């Protein structure tokens, strides 16, 4: 079972560095960009580990940690704090709040992994059978990998899907599958995050020679036509219809 890591940082750069650090291991990294978003992801996804920045807009890491520690079902999730401030008062404040460990920026990904291995045993990728990959958004239908997008995709959901998508591609390669259906029938709102996710999926499928089909409502098809990146996509009304076109 992959270790689920939540990276909470307002800097996309730091979230990418954290995700990259874990990429060699059997881990799924999900992201949030402030404390409010972080708490929402924690409640929904129950991560095994949180890597938490301190200085963030909307809600900082100290406040998020304090709220986390106030919830009995979440207070035991290990937290590693990331801080740009190494002053002794700052460090004492963090330690007193019951974090597992802290790291002062600048840091290297290997240093983060070293801290994590004090808490968890990290399995290198490849030692877990790729067939064990599971996610609420991904399923296999008659030898076709299907990604069903949720009703509403916020930043953290999209980040989770992006993380799982890489595993799905590996799982497909291991099983010899080459057909992929992106099912957006449930999706009620198309925003730029979803458009970017779809275009990224298209590019990855092209790169990996995977045949891709889209499923969605007429309304969705009209919405997608409004975006330059997705205006040329052919949309099918059901998974069965899409399957018939392979």
């Amino acid at each position: 079972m992959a270790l689920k890591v939540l990276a909470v940082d307002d800097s996309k750069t730091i979230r990418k560095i954290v995700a990259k650090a874990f990429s060699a291991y059997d881990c799924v990294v999900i992201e949030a960009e402030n404390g409010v978003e972080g708490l929402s992801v924690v409640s929904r996804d129950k991560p095994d580990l949180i890597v938490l920045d301190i200085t963030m807009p909307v809600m900082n890491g100290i406040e998020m940690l304090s709220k986390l520690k106030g919830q009995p079902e979440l207070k035991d999730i290990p937290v590693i704090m990331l801080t740009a401030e190494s002053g002794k008062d700052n460090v004492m404040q963090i330690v007193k709040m019951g974090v597992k460990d802290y790291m002062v920026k600048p840091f290297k990904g290997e240093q983060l992994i070293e801290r994590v291995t004090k808490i968890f045993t990290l399995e290198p990728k490849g030692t877990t059978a790729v067939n064990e990959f599971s996610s609420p958004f991904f399923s296999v239908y008659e030898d076709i990998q299907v990604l069903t997008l949720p009703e509403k995709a916020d930043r953290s959901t999209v980040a989770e899907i992006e993380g799982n998508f890489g595993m799905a591609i590996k799982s497909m390669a291991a099983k010899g599958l080459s057909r992929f259906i992106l099912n957006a029938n449930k999706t009620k709102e198309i925003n730029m995050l979803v458009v970017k996710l779809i275009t990224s999926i298209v590019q990855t499928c092209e790169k990996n020679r995977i045949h891709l089909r889209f499923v969605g409502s007429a309304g969705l098809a009209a919405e997608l036509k409004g975006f330059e990146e997705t205006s040329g996509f052919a949309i099918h009304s059901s998974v069965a219809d899409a399957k018939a076109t392979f």
Partner: protein
Amino acid sequence: MSDINKLDLIGFAINSTRDVFQTMLSMKLNVIESRLPMKSPNKIVGCVSFAGDVMGNICVHVPTPFARVMTAAMLGMELDEVEDEGEISDVIGEVSNMIGGDLKSRLCDAGFPCQLSIPSITRGNDFVIESKGWMRHERFAFQQEGHLAMVEVFIKTVN
């Protein structure tokens, strides 16, 4: 509280900058102490502020071509893979945050408690940041493989 005029601000800033570039970008810097503002036709400036018993700003001035090199190095990408301007701004903001965070910690440890802001980014052509009313204004430039960049620190005590 110690005397703010006796703090080795330039030494703090140089050490922090070297540490950030070495750790996050695997770059060794050649530091040039300079009183001249950096002129660059196109640059990005990342600033963080601190406020408390001392107030101040630390600004990192980076010419755009060097900012792209820094972004590629920090994210482990090839230079031609850096396309997103937001990504470049985020990297410069994070570098400023790390340098500013270290300086803030040293100020706190020296008896000047203060809080750090989140970074802000300014982009443009041929501009100079002028700032008045500060007790200290320190600046140094650094070179890295032909690129020239600059760090400025402004600071004053609050009574």
